[in-house]
């Protein structure tokens, strides 16, 4: 009997009611887009266009020779105005191609269907995915073609799609599963063929019974694809926890999913794969949930890559209250922004606007050793100890208590009655440990 969940975890309020019932709307056509040349984990792309060039929708504008990288395409047709640095939603700055749209959305001639699953060879599917610049759309943005390439030494029998959407507020995946379940199944089947995997699983939290139903219906003719209803608990969608819930296997600490004979992708990534096979259109847009208590009209929007978030906010009726915090992603693992000049990228699952009250950072008090962080840590760490060692700069001890195994889900900081910055200090320890490892290997 499968467990359908994992040990530990928390039950944050869902905050999903405001957007869960809202059909995905197409966002307004942007007049100018700022397309970052790095929207993925891995090496940044080099621009393939010059200022003054005319580009069309789906045209490749950035590429890299590195294996772990993802191509970048134009999301509009128009003229390249500038190649410049813009604020990166993941921190720092990123090089971006600024394109002024001519409003015509003329499609590039290279955009044509790759073909049906049956007619394509595994390596052709991988090539189509690579050429489309698809990345993990749950937020980790790891290049998808790398993960679906079959490796001789690591057999992956189980292919899992993540439809848990355990982050509060976010409903983008939920809407996708309701509105386009066929594409998710199609993309899953294509990726399974590429990776030569036998069994497909789609894990969905049981707070989305309608999505479970829709996906079950879409998968009914594929006996090797199972829809798994998971307990509603954060971080149910964390890769290793999802694997355990679906197939009862533990991914070895420090290893990757493929060490457990499994690979995990987001449902949105699968839909993107289906889109490129069916239409040839590369990854140039995505569904983003816009929510939070300081946005006038929360929405689920299909937004083109490169649109500044301030335009998205405007389209949602602007700020309803003075904004205190802007988060790209979910409230548990998303990244707080210092400016609304950042743009929507392939990994933007959510855009949250909090008012000043919600944004306030609570004053930490002393640790009372209640042990709640130990009880709920999904990887069985002792956050209170790692945090204390980190704050006292005792990184060897933090390492001994396996800080490096932290998945940064933030459950410990969430649950702490003393409002201690547990995850923040554990991140510091992780960085110090990684730095030490780097020095040792040099």
């Amino acid at each position, binding site marked *: 009997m499968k467990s359908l969940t994992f040990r530990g975890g928390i039950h944050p309020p869902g905050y999903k009611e405001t957007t869960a019932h809202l059909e995905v709307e197409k966002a307004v056509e942007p007049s100018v887009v700022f397309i970052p040349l790095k929207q993925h984990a891995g090496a940044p792309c080099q621009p393939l266009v010059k200022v003054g060039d005319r580009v069309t929708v789906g045209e490749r504008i950035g590429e890299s020779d590195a294996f772990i990288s993802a191509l970048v395409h134009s999301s509009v047709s128009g003229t390249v105005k500038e190649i410049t640095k813009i604020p990166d939603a993941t921190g720092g700055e990123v090089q971006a191609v600024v394109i002024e749209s001519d409003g015509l959305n003329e499609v590039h001639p290279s955009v044509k269907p790759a073909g049906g699953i049956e007619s394509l060879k595994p390596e052709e599917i991988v090539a189509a995915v690579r050429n489309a610049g698809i990345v993990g759309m749950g937020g980790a943005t790891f290049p998808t073609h790398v993960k679906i390439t079959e490796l001789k030494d690591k057999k992956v029998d189980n292919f899992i799609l993540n439809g848990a959407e355990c982050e509060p507020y976010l409903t983008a995946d939920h809407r996708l599963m309701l509105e386009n379940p066929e594409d998710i199944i199609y993309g899953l089947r294509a990726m399974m063929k590429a990776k030569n995997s036998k069994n497909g699983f789609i894990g969905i939290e049981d707070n989305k019974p309608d999505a479970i139903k829709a996906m079950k219906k879409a998968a009914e003719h594929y006996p090797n694809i199972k829809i798994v209803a998971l307990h509603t608990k954060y971080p149910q969608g964390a890769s290793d926890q999802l694997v355990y819930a679906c197939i009862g296997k533990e991914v070895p600490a420090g290893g990757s999913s493929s060490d457990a004979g499994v690979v995990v992708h987001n449902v949105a990534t699968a839909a993107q794969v289906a889109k490129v096979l069916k239409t040839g259109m590369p990854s140039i847009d995505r569904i983003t949930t816009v929510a939070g208590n300081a946005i006038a009209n929360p929405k689920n929007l299909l937004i083109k890559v490169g649109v500044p978030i301030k335009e998205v906010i405007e389209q949602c009726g602007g700020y309803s209250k003075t904004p205190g915090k802007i988060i790209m992603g979910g409230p548990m693992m998303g990244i707080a922004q210092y400016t609304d000049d950042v743009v929507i990228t392939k990994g933007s699952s959510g855009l949250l606007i*909090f008012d000043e009250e919600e944004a306030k950072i609570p004053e930490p008090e002393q640790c009372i050793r209640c042990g709640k962080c130990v009880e709920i840590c999904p990887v069985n760490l002792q956050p209170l100890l790692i945090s204390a060692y980190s704050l006292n700069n005792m990184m060897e001890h933090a390492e001994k208590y396996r800080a490096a195994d932290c998945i940064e889900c933030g459950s410990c900081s969430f649950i702490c009655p003393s409002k201690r910055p547990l995850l923040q200090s554990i991140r510091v320890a992780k960085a110090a440990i990684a730095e030490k490892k780097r020095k040792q290997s040099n």
Partner: protein
Amino acid sequence: MEERLFVSSSPHIRDENTIQKMMLDVVIALLPATLGALYYFRINGAKIILLSVLTAVASEAVFQKLRKQPITINDLSAVVTGLLLAFNIPASAPWWIPVLGAVFAIVVVKQFFGGIGHNFMNPALAARIMLMISYTGHMTSWVKPGADAVSTATPLSFVKGLTEVPGKAPKLFDMFMGNTGGCLGETSAILLILGGIYLVYRGIISIQVPAIYIATVAVFTLIFGQFDVYFMVYHLLAGGLMLGAIYMATDYASAPVTPKGRIIFALGCGILTSVFRLYGGYPEGVGFSILLMNIAAPLIEKYTSPRVFGEVR
């Protein structure tokens, strides 16, 4: 507008729980036993409870004021300590016993070691033992429940050195209800259990520690009493076992945080309590047992780190 955006490390939402709310839950859980103490020991009980709680809160405030630290009496942890200390004092004790005990608990055991979360022993229990050793007479002059303070013996003194319950010993029902000799808050098993159920329900304590502690004592006394169930139940209801197992051994700061550590801790408490009660010089052993295990807690914790998810050992 950009200057006004908060930028911080994730997560961006926090649970609404606070130290104050947790401590308030403990106070609520102690309420039935407090009312029981007032009912059984009347004005003497009220006097000791008030003095103990007020002194605990006041000494925390004064100490923090003198040390120019933020005053944290609002977190209610001093109230809990004061209340628990009062529960550990007989109703006949003079006024300065709870006052001295509360100052010792808060200043020496709690604040000297860094305040909340840093006490290496349960403050109320450490104060009880200090008072017991220093003022044995005052701390062991038990009175019968009621306003007129007729002196009596505790249930445990009836069975000291015996393997069966003598005929003149208190009735189990009276011990269950609390109508017997003993410290203010330890006599009524039912009221303490009631509060314990509330704490478990609210997620303040896990049932593990009290359950294992009490079960261990049950097993030992059952064996020692040659499988006399009456003898076993008598031991479970007598003395400070319920108070200690539910409210003292579950103290956050002085017990291990690891799941396995908590099991070992509770087992240790149970074994030591049984040994002290059955073979020791004093009739009661709960206080010494928990304090000894408190001291062992860091060591236990060190060797009981849970297996990390996916870790291959």
